[in-house]
Structure formats: structure tokens, C-alpha cells
């Protein structure tokens, strides 16, 4: 028995004898009370601002509550677009269900002009690529450019996103990705897709086969950050090959409580409530903040672009936190169990007569 084991035994023994043991063995960070909700991103001029959400589409109360937090944070941090990490619509995807699981909860953001860019998860009908509010252009994998600098910035730098369909990485998709990555001149190359290449989730974990084909391309062509869902929790992975930072953000509407086992690759984890992320890219720095359903910050920080010259950003003083007036939610309330879909009975799809 080594020292670590002995220490654990002593701690466990002490906790068992304590009249009111309070330290849980679960992962990380109990969120702060919602009254302390703050925005920690710097809101620099000309920065690219977006939100990240994954595994949202259940139509559950919790999804709606996360959406309300997104709206609250959008008031202080007006992000231009949202990337959706798959499992956008669980179960039925009739028009009524599309409204229940997407259009209604995010209506305030849609009304404010926020653009959503989706990728497909294993619970999604691939025909979501034709759905105009997901902005996939009819493609299962696609790329788009984000820049707040207007037309003059379009020939230089900027941020390019590569949305992939990770459950079907065939030769056509991999060839397309290599062509697009190799021809991109963007400073920041960010990829997002459903299945995480790195994850400490107990339910799914790392998609090793996908990692074998994607990671070499990411390293070769300078991808800097990767966002995935699938595991219903939050995890920031320590920088991997090529300095790439990977995030798992799969609890925008689905949650696997205590679903994370901390591993050597975990930089930060949160698996006790739902969450979303907001991200700001300014120059060679990517600022991120993960926010729980109650509005609490569960992770935040800055990533300097791998390969970029060292700058003072990480040494710069942290921006003054901005208070955010967040809606009250009841985190102690009933959670939608894994696999339970929706909160509203769905009407049967109306039959379409065969074409004449």
C-alpha cells in the first residue's frame, strides 16, 4: 500500500467520523450561487464572440433554463453566433418538436440575430442539414469564417470553423477536411463535432478511431481548439499533441451526473449540472467561460494560440468581472433523466400522401 492510498484511507476514516461530512468525492466545483454570476471575458474591440452548446435538444425544463442563462449573458456579452455540438434534436423531429426543442428556447437569441451553426450527432436526423436555422448549407460537414472586422478583414487572419460529422468519417469527408485545412489562411482554425477525441466521460470516453484519423490532420494544419459533446458533462482537456485544447461540452440539455472520472488529461471538469460556454477570440488569445444552469462560472481562462508569438495577454491583468443579472432557477428540482425525451407530448406526424 503506497502513501497515497494510506492518505486516502486516513481521509476517508476522518470523514466517516466527522459529524457532518461535507466534502463530496465527485468532480470539482459546486457552482456558486446565481447571485454572484459574472462575466469574466474581456469584451475587446473587434473580437470574435460566440457561444457553445452541446446535446441540447430534449425540450426539457433544464434545456430551457440553460437557454435563459444564455440570453442573460448575451445581454452583457453579445455573441454573434452559437456552435451546436450535435444531438440537437433528440427523438422526434417533427416541426412541432423542432419548435419545442430548438426554436422556442432560443427564440430571444434568434430574434436578436444570433446565428446558430450545427453539426450532427448520433441522435440527429441528417436532414437537419437542410434546416435553415442550423445554417449548414445542406452539407453534413462544412466550414465558415468568423470575423468582426468587416470586409477589410476577410483577406487575412480571422477565425475559421470546421464542422464535421464525426459518426461517419469516410474518405470523402477526410479528403475534404484536408483540402480545406490546407488551403485556409486563418490564424485560428477551430473544429467542432459530436464525438470527443479526448474525454474522461464514463459513458463514452475518447473516440480513439476518430482520433486516429483526425488528430494528425489537426496537428499538421494547425488547428488550435476543438469542441465536442456526446458525453453529457463539461471537461476541458489539457493541451494535447500540437498544443491543441479540447473541450467536451455536452450538457446543454442532457446531463449525466457524476459522469466524469478525472484522469490525467483533465484540466477541469464539471458534471453536477447543465452548462453552456461563451468564447471570445482576440488576436492570438482565446478566452473562455463555462457557465452552469444557475449562472455560476464553472471554468474560465485564456488559451494562447499554439505557434503564435508569445504575447502579454496571459500575463495581462484579468478583466474586471461584469455582473450578469441571471434568471433564478431551481437546481435542486427534478432533473430530466438520461434518455427521457421532451416534456411535452408530441403530436403524431401528419401523413404525407404519395406524389401523384
Amino acid at each position, binding site marked *: 500500500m503506497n502513501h497515497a492510498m494510506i492518505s486516502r484511507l486516513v481521509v476517508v*476514516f476522518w470523514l466517516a467520523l466527522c459529524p457532518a461530512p461535507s466534502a463530496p468525492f465527485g468532480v470539482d466545483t459546486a457552482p456558486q450561487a446565481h447571485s454572484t454570476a459574472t462575466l469574466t471575458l474581456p469584451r475587446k474591440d473587434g473580437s470574435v464572440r460566440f457561444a457553445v452548446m452541446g446535446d441540447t435538444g430534449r425540450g426539457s425544463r433544464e434545456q430551457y433554463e440553460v437557454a435563459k442563462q444564455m440570453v442573460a449573458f448575451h445581454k452583457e456579452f453579445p455573441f454573434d453566433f452559437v456552435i451546436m455540438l450535435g444531438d440537437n434534436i433528440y427523438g422526434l423531429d417533427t*416541426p412541432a418538436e423542432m419548435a419545442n426543442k430548438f426554436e422556442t428556447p432560443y427564440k430571444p437569441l434568434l430574434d436578436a440575430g444570433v446565428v446558430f451553426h450545427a453539426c450532427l450527432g448520433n*441522435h440527429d436526423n441528417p436532414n437537419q442539414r437542410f434546416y435553415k436555422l442550423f445554417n449548414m448549407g445542406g452539407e453534413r460537414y462544412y466550414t465558415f469564417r468568423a470575423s468582426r472586422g468587416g470586409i477589410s478583414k476577410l483577406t487575412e487572419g480571422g477565425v475559421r470553423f470546421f464542422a464535421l460529422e464525426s459518426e461517419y468519417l469516410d474518405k470523402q469527408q477526410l479528403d475534404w477536411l484536408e483540402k480545406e485545412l490546407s488551403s485556409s489562411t486563418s490564424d485560428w482554425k477551430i473544429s467542432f463535432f459530436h464525438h470527443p477525441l479526448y474525454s*474522461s466521460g464514463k459513458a463514452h470516453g475518447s473516440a480513439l478511431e476518430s482520433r486516429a*484519423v483526425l488528430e494528425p490532420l489537426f496537428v499538421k494544419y494547425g488547428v488550435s481548439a476543438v469542441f465536442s459533446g456526446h458525453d453529457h458533462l463539461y471537461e476541458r482537456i489539457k493541451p494535447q499533441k500540437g498544443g491543441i485544447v479540447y473541450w467536451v461540452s455536452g450538457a446543454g440539455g442532457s446531463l449525466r451526473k457524476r459522469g466524469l472520472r478525472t*484522469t490525467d488529461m483533465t484540466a477541469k471538469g464539471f458534471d453536477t449540472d447543465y452548462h453552456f460556454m461563451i468564447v471570445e477570440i482576440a488576436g492570438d488569445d482565446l478566452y473562455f467561460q463555462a457557465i452552469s444552469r444557475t449562472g455560476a462560472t464553472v471554468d474560465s481562462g485564456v488559451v494562447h494560440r499554439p505557434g503564435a508569438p508569445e504575447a502579454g495577454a496571459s500575463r495581462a491583468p484579468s478583466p474586471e468581472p461584469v455582473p450578469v443579472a441571471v434568471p433564478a432557477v431551481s437546481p435542486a428540482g427534478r432533473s430530466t433523466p438520461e434518455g427521457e425525451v421532451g416534456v411535452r407530448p408530441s403530436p403524431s406526424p401528419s401523413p404525407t400522401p*404519395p406524389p401523384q
Partner: protein
Amino acid sequence: MDDHASLARRGAARFLIGLLAALCLAVPVLAGPGEKPEEKDEAARAAKVAKKVARALEKARKAEEEPVEADRRALRKFHEEVMEYAELHDKQVARLGKPVAVDAQDCFAAQRALARSIQSKRVTARQGDIFAPAVEPIFRRLIAVELRGPDGLPARQAILEGNPGEEKPSVPVVVRVNGEYPIGAARSTVPPSVLLTLPPLPASLEYRFVGRDLILLDSVAQLIVDFLPAAAPNRPIK
């Protein structure tokens, strides 16, 4: 005295309860985070999987350049059947109009209209029309090679991800030719090593697994075009 004895008894009882609680808690803690062998060797497994996928890629390249003579005819026939279906699909899409950037109602209606249209043109289609008997053993062999052994474990696990025959709860999928892949049903991951070794398909078609069956799915109409029963060998996933 009684008070002292009672206090001592209570103290001893508390100590014993604490000890028992400690032992109960210690077992899962000792076997907890960071201690499982599968976590320790993820990097090693990832390296093995990377080699395996590289081998699959190389094999696919060779097969494309120098197909085995015995397989050539069967694969050519498979390709012809696939392209015939793709032509039918494209004609129906051209007739009905391709949905691009539409609202939920039109998206849903377009899928159903295309499905009805194709179903009506393939009323006589049967299992094995495309996965013909001559090509069946080739598919079974290609899939079996990628799923076998310890290195095939991640691929075997990947196939179960979202597989409606395995994942619970899931909308059940009835595997039959010309049948619709039901709305709301999950979709299996097709691992890259398998996907890269199977014959390539046009954009209108894709391979998926339902349970152990390999299905050929129309990617827009969401129709099962053909299937290969028990294409994935029955192997453990642990």
C-alpha cells in the same frame, strides 16, 4: 457510573460505525479515479488504434489499385447496383426539388415526399439486390478483419454508439428493404477503419449498423435500400 458506561458504549459504537463506513467508502475510493488500467493505457491503446487505422487505409488504397481478381467482378456489380440506385435517387430529387435552407415543416415534408416517391419506384426490391450473394462474403470479411482482436475493440465499441439495436432507450428500427428509418431513432457510428475499407458510396447512400446488420441507407429519404444480415461478427465489446 451508568452515564459513564453509556458514554463509553456510545463512543465504541460510534467508532465501529465510523470504521465500517470508512471501509465501505475506501473500497470505491481506492478503485476510483486514475486507478483503472484502461485509463492508464489510453495513450498506448490510441497508438495501437492509430496503427490499425493506418493499415486499413493502406489496405483500402491497395484494394483500389489492385483489386483481388476473384473480388473484382462482385465489387463491380455492387458498384453498378449502387450507381443505379443513386441515379434513381437523383432523378426523384430533381423532380421534387432539393431542400436547401428550409423551415422545419418543409424539411420534414421533403424527406417524406422523397421517401414515398422512391418507395413507389422500388416496390419489387428485395434483400440481396445490392448486397448480392457474390459480394456478401467480401463485406463480411472486410468488416470482420477490422473488428477482430484487442485492437478492434474501439471499433466494436464505436459501432454500439447510437446503434438502435443496442442503445436503450431508442426508437426500434425494423430492418427491411424499402422500409423507413424511423424518425427519432439513433444512428450508429461507423468506425473509420471499417468505413475506409468498405467500397465507397455516392453521397446519397451511407452504411449504418442496426444491431449486427449492415444497412445501406438513403441519406436523404431515410430509406433502407438493402441490408446484410449479421454483417458484424458477434464479438464481445469488453
